[in-house]
């Protein structure tokens, strides 16, 4: 078996998790950068549409490394599709597959279900709520909380910051509530 085939299979948690954890010291050692993704959204606002809002009045160019980092994340996704694509669809818990089939979701080839996230469904009620509404909540919520999964759950917890623990618990609680009690209504639209 060659190395490309081996790397193309899904990576188990005990490989991926430690590698993600190593991003923390890697960025610190490269130049005192704290791991965090959601700030990139703020830097984009500061660079493109600051609109005299105090929150966006700072020297975003000093944070440009963050934009290179997220640009790299996008290229990383592309690289996997070009070189390390898993030929098999994602394997999910049969209970989830049974539930989702009730909403007409059966294509497991992509990272997002193609039945929900595509250009044709974008302007439907379901599409607007999921893509536009969901995205808005991600951008608004992460900035309100002062960080996302990378900045709080990984970087903050790595530095033993208790506000990050509160944030992480809030992320999980919010996600648990919506996935179990609200999403079924959205998917039924």
């Amino acid at each position, binding site marked *: 078996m060659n190395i490309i085939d081996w790397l193309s299979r899904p990576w188990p948690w005990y490989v991926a998790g430690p590698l993600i954890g190593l991003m923390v010291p890697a960025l610190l050692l490269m130049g005192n950068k704290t791991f965090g993704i959601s700030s990139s959204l703020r830097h984009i606002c500061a660079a493109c549409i600051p609109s005299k809002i105090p929150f966006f009045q700072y020297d975003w160019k000093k944070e440009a490394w963050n934009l290179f980092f997220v640009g790299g994340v996008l290229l990383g996704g*592309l690289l996997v599709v070009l070189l390390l694509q898993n030929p098999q669809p994602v394997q999910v818990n049969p209970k989830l597959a049974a539930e989702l089939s009730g909403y007409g979701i059966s294509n497991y080839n992509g990272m997002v279900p193609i039945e929900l996230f595509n250009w044709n469904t974008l302007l439907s009620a379901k599409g607007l709520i999921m893509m536009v509404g969901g995205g808005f909540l991600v951008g608004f919520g992460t900035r309100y909380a002062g960080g996302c999964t990378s900045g709080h759950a990984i970087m903050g917890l790595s530095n033993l910051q208790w506000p990050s623990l509160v944030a992480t618990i809030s992320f999980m609680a919010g996600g648990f509530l919506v996935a179990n009690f609200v999403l079924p209504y959205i998917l039924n639209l």
Partner: protein
Amino acid sequence: MTTIKEKKHHDFLTGNTDFEVRSLDAESVNESALNDSGWSFFKYLVAGILFGVILVKSEVISWFRIQEMFRLQSFHMFGVIGSAVVVGIISVWLIKKFKLKTIHGEPIELMNKKFHNGTIYGGLLFGFGWAITGACPGPLFAQIGTGATVIIVTLLSAIAGTWVYGRVKSHLPH
């Protein structure tokens, strides 16, 4: 013993009021007095590519894996985040214990996160969005990279959400 370089960096941190203002609500602030340019950005691009590859190959950017996580149907996501945190804690502890410096010779100083009630309100709102989109900010970029072009709309909406937060920030409970 404090070296001149350490003192210079500390003065930079404490004297930089812009940093102080931003550190109140940004999780990522530039803690280096050095300016990046040209090739020094390249290493962050490479780090980003590696991070993107890990995110996709471990399927943590999969909408399906996120649904499994929030329904407690799989250990995968908890294993990834949990082991990442353990490695991160050990790494930060080692950096502090041995007072490691950056490759440019700057001392590494970490700022504390400040708590405000927005941490909870914002955290819940982000959780709602995470469950719906199956993505946090990093995965949005990675999903687009894998060819899910419509996620560009979700990303633009997230940027709009960040902008609106900045706009209404002073009226929100913190």
